[in-house]
């Protein structure tokens, strides 16, 4: 029988149901997504569960099915795991599992981003990004590499075991255990797979070879003519010493590709808007034992990438009865990339090399079903991409695939209105066994082993530095490189002309290598790889001109090198760019017309030792002045319909420092250099008067940002010296993403730094506990254990049981 209290109960039930719905659902308020608040605030499943206790006792045992024997995991003081397994399959199953416990959201998100599936999580804001990823063929490359790896009888079971390890961890998670980011963004981890490992690799290939200026150079060439274009955007300006110079003759017979007679850059218009950061780069070097204080070779490596939480790199020790290696891996990869084992140390910097070209496609008609290839019409494959978008309808995009590659830009994507049909030919689309190279390289005993391991290293092309306990040092510029004719792919190519297609690759045996050179060191910093003595054509649109010279000059000094020296060099804030620019610019300032304030700024810059100190003003003054000066100077090159981009600082300094070149540019571009120098200097002085003194730290804002760009999970205004062109290449949200120094004693001793921490959980003490050390040359010694049993008392042990 219905009573009054039942009516109250019904009203309450409706009210409660509405409340539970509101608290259990993600809302978008304005354009800000708000996580389901009930779930998020629940101390039994929400963010409070990620507040891990500081006196954290790691579990003594965990179950990992599929192991053939227990795997011991030693956690050191800063949370670095050291894995001891009885065989390779167990090792990588455990690596997958342990990696997931520390960095699950990161690896999941990176694989998702590589595949162009971010809109599923964040909504319509990422549609353009996702379309770009798919149109540039990220999945084409990842699937090709995946197929090659799974066809390899050695690698397939290892990658499968790794994925299984990740998946066992995912399967063990309740909502309460999920990483914080899943709760904030309200999504779930996806199962891992070898394909997703290939996607992570593809993400790195894109990061390190996803930049060119073919479109800009094509138009600049057409508008300015070859002479002025070469003056402003030279492929090889004077004064460059490459990573591997031609010391003597090369010990192979080269077969470079001759240029076709018909070659003429195609003049079409389309801006390439989807490029990775061209300043992704690094430093590495090795000093021969004959030049070190204790006779052991030294190896150093620091990689300049976006500075993120969680860091891109993950330090780990991996051991089986056959080998033990310590180093840095990327979540999603088996083994380590940069590191050392008992016999050798190895590291990488990006080898800038043009492995990405644009082909203009001539369609038969508006339906774009067939395109011209020589005298014939060739059918295009149409790939339909369906992009799921959170809180919105799916987006369907059809991508035309040609034999050159996918048509990234057309009337449906790119500039509006689109002005060109451009297909991307990219080494990133080729199958890559890079993962196998890493596996073999982790186990090298000699330089010969190292070279053999790199036989499988195709992309992203890297300058591999190597040093062994036997005393060998070497630099090898490894990747698979198209064998191009001079200027092939520097400009847009004609997709209809078969002579414009890639004509094969430079053989592995012709790789530029330097072993135990007379100067007693090898080094690389993303400068030109080789000089004109190398028999194959070399080109890249973005090259480094300053760090490499600072390193080489310092390494050439007469002294016996120590670990301390190497660490200090990694932290050098000397800005050679500022030194060379000021040498040219200050004499152009009309001192007679300076007021007291201007005089003081002038003298400050004149006295400066060109070290970019965060608490000093000079680097800020220089950077602000130089930026505005270059904008004004090169403004005539930035006109619609397509900006050509600014000439490099190196070339700017070269032109400004040479009165003949300066006059040539002044006449061609109708600019007055002296007036620009003086006007921008006055503006700088006035700005300083109005806004007050700003330190380099304030202007640079060195910061480590969370991968999802959440400021509350990031660290800003870090007190760091250095700048983009210093060895300590710290520039805003970009810089040394790890530092590593190895002394090749027996066994090797190593030291490292990481801008963040091992654990990806913002509630964990190891989220950012290594950041403080990274700010200065305070290095942490690597714990390189022979067995789990010899672990220090401060470590903890977890045994993974089958």
């Amino acid at each position, binding site marked *: 029988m219905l009573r009054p209290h039942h009516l109250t109960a019904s009203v*309450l039930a409706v009210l409660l149901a509405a409340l539970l719905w509101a608290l259990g659902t993600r809302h978008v308020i304005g354009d800000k997504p708000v996580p389901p*608040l009930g779930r998020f*605030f629940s101390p039994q499943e929400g963010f409070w569960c*990620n507040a891990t206790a500081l006196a954290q006792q790691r579990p003594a045992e965990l179950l990992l099915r599929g192991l053939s024997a227990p795997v011991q995991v030693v956690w050191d003081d800063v949370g670095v795991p050291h894995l001891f397994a009885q065989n390779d399959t167990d090792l990588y199953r455990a690596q997958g599992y342990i990696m997931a416990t520390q960095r699950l959201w990161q690896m999941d998100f990176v694989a998702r981003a590589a595949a162009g599936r971010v809109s599923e999580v964040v909504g319509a804001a990422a549609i353009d990004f996702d379309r770009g990823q798919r149109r540039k063929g990220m999945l084409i490359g990842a699937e090709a590499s995946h197929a090659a790896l799974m066809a390899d009888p050695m690698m397939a079971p290892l990658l499968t075991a790794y994925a299984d390890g990740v998946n066992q961890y995912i399967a063990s998670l309740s909502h309460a255990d999920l990483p914080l980011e899943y709760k904030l963004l309200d999504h779930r981890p996806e199962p891992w797979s070898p394909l997703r490992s290939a996607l992570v690799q593809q993400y790195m290939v894109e990061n390190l070879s996803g930049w060119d200026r073919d479109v800009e150079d094509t138009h600049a060439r057409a508008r300015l003519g070859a002479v002025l274009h070469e003056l402003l955007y030279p492929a090889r300006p004077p004064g460059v010493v490459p990573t591997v110079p031609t010391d003597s003759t090369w010990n192979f017979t080269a077969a470079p590709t001759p240029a076709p007679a018909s070659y003429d850059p195609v003049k079409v218009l389309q801006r390439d808007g989807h490029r990775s950061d061209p300043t992704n780069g690094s430093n590495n070097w090795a000093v021969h034992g004959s030049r070190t204080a204790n006779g052991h070779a030294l190896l150093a490596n620091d990689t300049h990438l976006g500075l993120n939480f969680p860091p891109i790199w993950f330090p780990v020790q991996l051991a089986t009865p056959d080998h033990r290696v310590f180093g840095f891996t990327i979540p999603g990869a088996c083994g380590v990339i940069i590191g050392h084992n008992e016999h050798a140390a190895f590291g990488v910097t990006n080898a800038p090399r043009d492995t990405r070209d644009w082909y203009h496609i001539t369609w038969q008609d508006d339906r774009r079903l067939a395109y011209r290839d020589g005298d014939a019409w060739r059918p295009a494959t149409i790939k339909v991409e369906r992009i799921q978008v959170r809180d919105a309808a799916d987006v369907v995009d059809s991508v035309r695939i040609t034999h050159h590659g996918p048509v990234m830009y057309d009337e449906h994507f790119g500039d509006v209105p689109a002005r060109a049909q451009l297909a991307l030919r990219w080494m990133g689309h080729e199958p890559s066994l890079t993962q196998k190279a890493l596996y073999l390289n982790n186990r090298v005993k000699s330089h010969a082993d190292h070279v053999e391991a790199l036989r499988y290293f195709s992309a992203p092309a890297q300058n591999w530095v190597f040093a062994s306990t036997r005393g060998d040092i070497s630099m090898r510029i490894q990747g698979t490189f198209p064998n191009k004719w001079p200027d092939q792919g520097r400009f847009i190519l004609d997709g209809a002309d078969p002579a414009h297609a890639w004509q094969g690759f430079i053989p592995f045996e012709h790789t530029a290598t330097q072993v135990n050179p007379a100067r007693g060191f090898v080094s690389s910093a993303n400068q030109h790889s080789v000089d004109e003595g190398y028999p194959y054509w070399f080109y890249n649109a973005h090259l480094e001109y300053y760090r490499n010279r600072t390193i080489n000059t310092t390494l050439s000094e007469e002294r016996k090198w120590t670990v301390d020296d190497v660490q200090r060099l990694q932290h050098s804030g000397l800005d050679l760019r500022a030194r060379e620019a000021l040498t040219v610019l200050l004499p152009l300032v009309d001192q007679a017309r300076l007021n007291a304030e201007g005089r003081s700024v002038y003298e400050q810059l004149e006295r400066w030792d060109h070290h970019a100190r965060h608490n000093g003003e000079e680097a800020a003054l220089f950077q602000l002045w130089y930026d505005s000066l270059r904008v004004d100077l090169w403004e005539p090159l930035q006109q619609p319909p397509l900006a050509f981009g600014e000439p490099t600082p190196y070339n700017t300094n070269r032109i400004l420092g040479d009165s003949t070149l300066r006059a040539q540019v002044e006449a061609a571009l109708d600019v007055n250099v002296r007036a620009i120098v003086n006007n921008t200097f006055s503006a700088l002085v006035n700005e300083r008067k109005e806004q007050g003194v700003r330190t380099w730290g304030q202007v640079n804002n060195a910061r480590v940002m969370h991968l999802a760009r959440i400021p509350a999970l990031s660290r800003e205004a870090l007190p760091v010296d250095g700048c983009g062109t210093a060895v300590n290449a710290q520039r805003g949200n970009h810089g040394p993403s790890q530092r590593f120094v190895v002394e090749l004693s027996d066994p090797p001793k190593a030291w490292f730094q990481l801008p963040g921490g091992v654990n990806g959980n913002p509630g964990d003490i190891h989220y950012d506990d290594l950041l403080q050390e990274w700010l200065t040359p305070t290095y942490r010694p690597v714990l390189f254990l022979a067995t789990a049993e010899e672990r220090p008392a401060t470590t903890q042990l977890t045994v993974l049981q089958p």
Partner: protein
Amino acid sequence: MRMLITIVTVAALGAVLGYILPFWSLAFAAAIAGMLVRPGPWRALMGGLVGGAMLWGGLAAWADAANTGILSARIADLFGASVTVLKLITAAIGGVLGGLGCVLGDRLRGPRTN
């Protein structure tokens, strides 16, 4: 006394169910508590509110203390609030779920007839 029993029952049942079921289980636990204890609507509301708030606020404070506030400082920054406000929001959501759930349970069973 009945108020105290309500508070304890809501908190205890909420704690147990919360480790098995999602966040809404607190309202469910409070409803069961209301049906069992039948404290009357006002005592149900107040008892459920206090029980739910104490449970969620208490667990949050416990986790926060063990973590020395590392995470709560970051989340507070994210929401543009203070850590205290964060804990108050947590307690408030717990309180509302407990209070409403408990009244609902009490009203489903109706007033005591003895």
